[in-house]
């Protein structure tokens, strides 16, 4: 049965009206935030004082903000990329997964990591590789059986863990290549597992994440997390903290996690109007309790970030997370900026290596069907003939493609 669009017409009209109101509010907030950034752009002492005061006096369980790292160039100015190193080795990984389906014939999940090693400046074609891993009840790595019954978020967390551990392994493997080695993930470095499974398994996975970060550092590599159109509002929180006395807002307003207190704005909206094509913002240290735990475990792993305008148009803005061991070294920071810009130039506005890693990782519907056929054949050869549930069967009837007799 198709959707009853008539019933939805009033909601669609209301949705459009609401979007109009929000856009007006957002524009007002953007104007205010831009003015604040200009006002505090180089008031380093004041910024340090007030953010340090906030860290001491606010409840850090709820307060997330940012603080400039270098206190050099004004915060409202874009920084142009320098020339990238003549040679560098860039490794990127990305992951995808097939989550367990208790209505399907067999319980399993699959994590596939796609990886690319790009030899910048050498003219060599990149190396690509995929690292698929099948897990099933009873296999040696699947001690937590709940993953097969309740939890797709645990599979996602394990995928994230594999993304960075494979990345660390590959960065170690290319140590002999000329020039710096840069590992890139297409997600935040300040890893924060979410979902029901995070309570039980999150701590171990964050531990493994931090360990992989340290391993990349120990191998002499650099690391960056590239986040397209990030929703983070840490810089906005910083500006509102600086202006707390004048704004009439309370500390509790800044504890709120939803972006509505900033009129739906995020940091990317702010820097989208300030940065020119290929420019980056100043580097900020992420101020949060979570980052404090990263720093406690390994001071080099404290996460910093900058914003990068990846394309000439509006909205083409990414956040780049870098660990302190990269952010603290000017040469490394400038090279990461330049190499990311160079990568974006290949296809216009997004790093080529991330595009390719994603493409290698993706497990399409056809691949999934082929995998399940092979599992079924192997099971049948052992005399195992399970059936799919009635619910799954009915879904397959409803979603099956129609075919036509063509003679």
């Amino acid at each position: 049965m198709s959707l009853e669009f008539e019933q939805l017409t009033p909601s669609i009209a209301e949705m459009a009206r609401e979007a109009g109101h929000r856009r007006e509010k957002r524009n007002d907030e953007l104007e205010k935030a831009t003015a604040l950034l200009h006002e505090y752009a180089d008031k380093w002492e004041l910024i340090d004082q007030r953010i340090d005061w906030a860290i001491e006096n606010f409840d850090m369980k709820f307060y997330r903000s940012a603080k400039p790292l270098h206190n050099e160039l004004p915060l409202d100015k874009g920084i142009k990329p320098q020339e990238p190193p003549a040679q560098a080795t860039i490794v990127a990984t990305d992951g995808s997964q097939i989550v367990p389906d208790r209505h399907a014939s067999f319980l399993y999940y699959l994590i596939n990591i796609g990886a690319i090693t790009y030899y910048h400046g050498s003219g060599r074609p990149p190396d690509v590789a995929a690292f698929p891993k099948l897990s099933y009840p009873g296999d040696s790595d699947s001690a937590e059986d709940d993953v097969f019954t309740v939890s797709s978020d645990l599979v996602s967390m394990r995928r994230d863990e594999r993304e960075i551990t494979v990345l660390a392994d590959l960065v170690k493997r290319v140590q002999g290549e000329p020039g710096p080695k840069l590992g890139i993930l297409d997600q935040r470095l300040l890893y924060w597992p979410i979902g029901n499974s995070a309570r039980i398994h999150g701590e171990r996975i964050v531990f493994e994440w931090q360990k992989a970060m340290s391993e990349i550092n120990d191998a002499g590599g650099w690391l960056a997390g590239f986040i397209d159109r990030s929703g983070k509002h840490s810089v906005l929180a910083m500006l509102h903290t600086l202006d707390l006395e004048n704004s009439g807002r309370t500390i509790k307003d800044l504890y709120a996690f939803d972006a509505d207190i900033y009129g739906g704005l995020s940091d990317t909206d702010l820097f989208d109007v300030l940065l020119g094509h290929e420019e980056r913002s100043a580097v900020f240290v992420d101020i949060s309790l979570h980052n404090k735990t990263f720093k406690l475990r390994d001071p080099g792993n404290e996460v910093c970030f900058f914003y990068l305008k990846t394309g000439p148009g509006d909205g083409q803005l990414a956040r780049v997370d870098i660990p302190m061991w990269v952010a603290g070294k000017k040469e490394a920071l400038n090279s990461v900026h330049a190499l990311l810009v160079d990568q974006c130039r290949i296809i216009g506005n997004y790093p080529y290596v991330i595009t390719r890693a994603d493409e290698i990782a993706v497990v399409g519907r056809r691949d999934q069907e082929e995998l399940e056929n092979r599992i079924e054949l192997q099971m049948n050869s052992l005399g195992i003939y399970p059936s799919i549930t009635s619910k799954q069967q009915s879904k397959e009837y409803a979603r099956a493609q129609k075919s036509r007799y063509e003679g």
Partner: protein
Amino acid sequence: MNENSLEIGRVLRANTTGFAVGSRVKQLSAPGFGSLVKAQPAGEHEVIYGLIYNINIDDDQLIRRLVMVETPRPEVIEDQRTNRILPIEMSVLAVGYRINGNLHYSLPPRPPLNLDPVILVENAAEIRQFTNNLGYLRLILRAEGSRVPVDQLLVAHIHDVYLRRGEDVAWVVSVVREVIELLRSNYEVLIPTLEALSSAIPGLNMETAE
């Protein structure tokens, strides 16, 4: 497979009248429009012969993005061509088959199966053996009105075999006679075919052929 066998890809899909072959970029250097190929299931005594009548190179979103860049980098082009799984698709018109060593110039009893290897026929003796009997030309002409560019396919195929048979003008003359016979009531195909053949094959005397 003999020493002259060159695998150019594998069967993607098939029916009785032909099959589509998926190839990698590196497999594209030898086969061409009009080449004689064969689908040869391993260990089977059944071989299906066909002529390549179309080579299709698909794009995708990433290729479209790269095309928009002023000068794509050589390493990126190489990455696209060697590492990405974008098959080149060749369409093949079935023109005969061999069962237990006997050649037949008609449609095969069964199409090849998915993933059967497809081989470019380069062995001179095999080419001679298959093309000595011109019965397969009827299957090419039968495709008139379909997506197969019959006149161009005939010319490309005849030229290719002429070279592979050691510039065998006598064979071309016999082919032209057969084509004239088969197309005597279809001047729209016959005339451009003969014109193209006379310019493609030096030394071919059409008057002798006629």
